[in-house]
């Protein structure tokens, strides 16, 4: 086999995205003490509805694009897409509470269970009346014009980013999610008669509850899942040294004072499994590809931390995508690339690595070796560096930073504090501790941890670090603001988001792999079984301009 064959495809490039569940709290201290966690569902609905329904534009006000869960029938068309006639007509588009094509089982969405009790349409009225209606009717889903899903998941507002193809795009759509959350807080603040809300980009209350920041990657279906698990366990157990957000307190209830590298580590109890809310596994086996299941698997990664440092998010996506690319190349070529490391006790390793910010702790392998997290990560980074396509700029950058940060972390984690979130947070905590002479049990340190993740710009300690130039940034404020309304160009999120942005009254519903567009003479349901279908280049090649008149878009689609 030639070197060219080996390197082919080992890049960061693949369909990916991040789902973020935000912590949600009453802004008012008295309401917070009275409401406790029981108000979380109501606050989550207010948060989602404020962005989904409170629009000044009368065409958008009180109306959302419903979520389409997709359906189970496999796509028969080998081209990867399918257009079917839909009865939808703009005048028939009601803001039904029930989302489209809701499967009856196994969808943990508030919407799926919402009883239909009253009028289907948001009332004419002021913001408070619309919000009150949304809460009463459990409006829990919307699709945004950047292609994201914005919804209530259990008792948290969740932003599920549009699909992108690169780690940098992933950072951009993740930043857009922070801005959506900020917009929700501002809107609720401005409405009399509804509570103000504070949103947090973190993963635990340190009282036993954890909420997720999940990554999704599309992966070749033909790799045996056992091999996927074997390859990912040592990588996932140790990647937090670069991707961890840091956390004050140890144990699910923060019962032991101290600092640890990962906010999520203590909530993991299993190596592999389907669950996400209890007995959480290092490798989650959920597999709904939202794409052609004969070709693709969706790897749903639940072991990541919520991060605000853009470099941390960028490297998390880039490094993980590269490991998957190496895994695919191994399968394709039969040549070993990734290190063969079998941890003796993976769950114990996750905890031990997270609990040691000195990075000196070792974890045993089945071969009887003792490895540090830095050694495990270095073995991955070097193995991938040897085969990756370094002509791809992002790939070379991710690998370069990966290796460089491992060196810096080895010397002194504080040297990585401009890019590694736990190191940034720990540096801040240590200087604060030194100034006030605090021990780790002092509640002010847990306060700093929480307020680091507070998304209100004037309160956020992360924002202070950023404003002081202490952390690197990858995207500009203007780019992030644009990504709130404009979808990424690289995937089907382009078609979904651009149609919603240009013709909100004509998009009946949308999901990851489906869009229903209404027209005067009937509509179309478009199924997209490959995330590349519907991208800006794909649309341009086929003469589909999502901003054109909806009838022209429908005509162009029917010509396909």
């Amino acid at each position: 086999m030639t070197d060219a064959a080996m390197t082919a495809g080992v890049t960061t490039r693949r369909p990916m995205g991040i789902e973020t569940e935000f912590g949600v709290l009453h802004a008012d201290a008295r309401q917070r003490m009275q409401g406790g966690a029981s108000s979380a569902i109501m606050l989550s609905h207010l948060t989602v509805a404020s962005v989904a329904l409170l629009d000044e534009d009368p065409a958008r006000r009180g109306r959302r694009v419903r979520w389409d869960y997709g359906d189970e029938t496999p796509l028969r068309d080998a081209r990867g897409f399918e257009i079917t006639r839909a009865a939808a007509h703009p005048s028939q588009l009601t803001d039904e509470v029930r989302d489209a094509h809701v499967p009856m089982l196994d969808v943990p969405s508030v919407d799926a269970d919402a009883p239909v009790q009253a009028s289907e349409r948001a009332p004419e009225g002021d913001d408070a009346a619309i919000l009150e209606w949304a809460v009463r009717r459990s409006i829990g889903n919307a699709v945004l014009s950047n292609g994201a899903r914005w919804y209530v998941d259990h008792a948290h507002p969740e932003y599920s980013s549009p699909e992108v193809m690169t780690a940098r795009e992933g950072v951009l759509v993740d930043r857009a999610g922070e801005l959506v959350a900020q917009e929700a807080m501002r809107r609720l603040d401005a409405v009399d008669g509804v509570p103000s809300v504070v949103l947090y980009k973190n993963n635990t209350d340190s009282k036993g509850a954890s909420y997720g920041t999940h990554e999704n990657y599309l992966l070749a279906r033909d790799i045996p899942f056992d091999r996927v698990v074997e390859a990912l366990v040592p990588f996932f157990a140790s990647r937090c040294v670069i991707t961890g957000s840091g956390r004050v307190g140890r144990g699910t209830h923060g019962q032991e004072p101290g600092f640890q590298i990962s906010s999520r580590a203590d909530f993991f109890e299993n190596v592999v499994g389907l669950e996400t809310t209890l007995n959480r596994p290092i490798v989650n086996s959920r597999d709904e590809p939202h794409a052609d299941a004969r070709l693709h698997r969706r790897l749903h990664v639940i072991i990541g931390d919520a991060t605000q440092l853009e470099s941390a998010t960028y490297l998390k996506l880039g490094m993980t995508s590269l490991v998957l690319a190496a895994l695919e190349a191994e399968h394709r070529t039969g040549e070993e690339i990734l290190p063969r490391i079998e941890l003796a006790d993976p769950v114990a390793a996750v905890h031990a690595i997270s609990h040691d910010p000195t990075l000196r702790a070792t974890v045993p392998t089945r071969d009887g070796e003792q490895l540090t997290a830095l050694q495990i990560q270095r073995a991955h980074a070097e193995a991938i560096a040897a085969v990756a396509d370094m002509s791809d700029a992002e790939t070379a950058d991710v690998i370069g930073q990966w290796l460089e940060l491992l060196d810096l972390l080895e010397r002194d984690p504080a040297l990585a504090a401009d890019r590694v979130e736990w190191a940034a947070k720990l540096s801040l905590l240590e200087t604060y501790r030194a100034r006030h002479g605090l021990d780790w049990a002092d509640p002010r340190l847990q306060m700093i941890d929480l307020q680091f993740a507070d998304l209100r710009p004037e309160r956020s300690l992360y924002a202070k670090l950023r404003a002081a130039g202490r952390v690197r940034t990858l995207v500009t404020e203007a780019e992030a603001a644009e990504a709130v309304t404009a979808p990424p160009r690289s995937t089907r999120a382009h078609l979904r988001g651009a149609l919603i942005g240009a013709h909100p009254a004509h998009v009946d519903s949308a999901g990851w792999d489906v869009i229903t567009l209404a027209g005067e003479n009937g509509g179309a349901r478009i199924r997209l079984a490959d995330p590349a279908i519907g991208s800006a280049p794909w649309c341009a090649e086929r003469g589909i301009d999502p901003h054109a008149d909806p009838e022209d878009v429908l005509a162009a689609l029917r010509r396909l």
Partner: protein
Amino acid sequence: MTQQFVTGPGHGEDDSAEDPTAQGGQTFASVQGSDDLLDEIDAVLETNAETFVRSFVQKGGE
């Protein structure tokens, strides 16, 4: 296990905590300017940390 590796006042004894300025532009300006930052943090930090931390209660998610 020590958690004293971070540069900052009073942790100079560990030999991994070399002079950060000698390490080629990648440093976190941990001492210079940190006073201003800490002042800002003191200014925005919730006044009653203990009460706030107790009231930060979430439901599980995912």
